């Protein structure tokens, strides 16, 4: 049995197929969904999402969102953004992280700035860099 699995963001549909297992980062920590999981709704943290399809594992960077496991063995992920690790441009991700860090530092001295939003932004940027780097270090995707 496989899980019908869909990741969708406000920009586009990232993935819609069947997968054997999906692991994602929730507020309470990492969970893995296997076929036949009970109906579940959870909130995703910025972090890594990986799924296995035909024995092959894929990595994505997710910047938060929601996941719904339906009783008919369908997992739907409404992500704010989602990117395959191999599609992340490390240099640009680094640059974005530096920008976010800088904005945070400057925000300390200014009032009336949405600090939480900046922090979330930084968190997302750091996450992207981390996942992109992690993926680069791994050997090519064969039967791992």
């Amino acid at each position, binding site marked *: 049995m496989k899980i019908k699995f869909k990741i*969708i963001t*406000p920009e586009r549909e990232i993935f819609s197929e069947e997968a054997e297992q999906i692991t994602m980062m929730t*507020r309470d920590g990492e969970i893995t969904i296997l076929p036949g999981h009970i*109906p579940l*709704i959870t*909130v995703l943290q910025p972090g890594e999402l990986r799924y296995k399809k035909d024995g092959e594992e894929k990595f994505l960077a997710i910047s938060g969102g929601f996941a*719904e496991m339906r*009783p*008919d063995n369908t997992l*739907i992920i409404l992500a704010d953004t989602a990117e395959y690790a191999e599609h992340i441009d490390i240099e640009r991700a680094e640059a974005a992280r530096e920008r976010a860090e800088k904005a945070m530092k400057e925000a300390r001295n200014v009032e009336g700035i949405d600090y939480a939003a900046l922090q979330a932004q930084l968190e997302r940027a750091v996450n992207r860099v981390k996942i992109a780097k992690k993926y680069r270090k791994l050997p090519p995707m064969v039967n791992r």
Partner: protein
Amino acid sequence: MGVNTKAIKRRIKSVGNTKKITKAMEMISAVKMRKAVANVLATRGYANLAWAMLVDVAKKTNAALHPILTKRPIKKVAVIFITSNRGLSGGFTSRLLQETNDYIIEEKKKTGTETDIILLGKRGRKIFSYFKHPIAAEFEKIDITTKMEEILPMARMIIAEYMNGKYDKVAVAYTDFVSAIKQIPRVKQILPLEKEDELLGKIGEEKEEKKYNFEFKFEPKPAEVLSMLLPRLVEMQIYQTILESDASEHSARMMAMRNASDAAEDMIKELNYNFNKARQAGITQEISEIVGGVAALG
């Protein structure tokens, strides 16, 4: 050449000028339409899934867990009325106006109170000037909405007022974008959450009967998940209806302007024909006058 040809010539010129303007507006609308349509199509899948999730949660969750889920006897209704800032878009505003008016009258019969209208887009003011429905609030509408942040103040206000009991029912009046030539005015209820049949844009999500007996497990705690999930998903719905309206508006305007340009073109053709006829008649008349004069002299 007589006075007649001069008048016709003037008309040809003026119709030609109008045509230039409508043509230009058509092209501008076409560009805006392309952008708006790309936006709306990109988010539609997400919005429809979010709506499905909302309905799932609302059906299967204890309403006491979050104020958005509460259902009260309906005494006061609010309608978010989404139109455009500008006219010249054919029947775009008037069709929605009609639809909304019907809805409001219907609701008034049921509740006995006047529905509050929250306006988005200047053209919507006609709901007051035509039908005398009072406007409770007006928000600025951006020509092409591209970010959720742009509509958050409005969406948050509505959700807050539903939760604190000011409104017992909230609906959105918008124009659903089906295709460049077809847009359907609609009034969709978003709060309380109950209807599942209304997917935006009517694209075919397969509908299966859900008769499982189950309850969702929430991680972390239900109240915590719901307080993050529900407002966000409702906001998403409002956002999507605005995108639908944007796409519809610009499509409607483009079509209206295209029709106007075509009509101007036809008119110019007709006028040219008349002009040539009048010119020819003038020349013929002149020659016959000369001939007649010579004959008289002879």
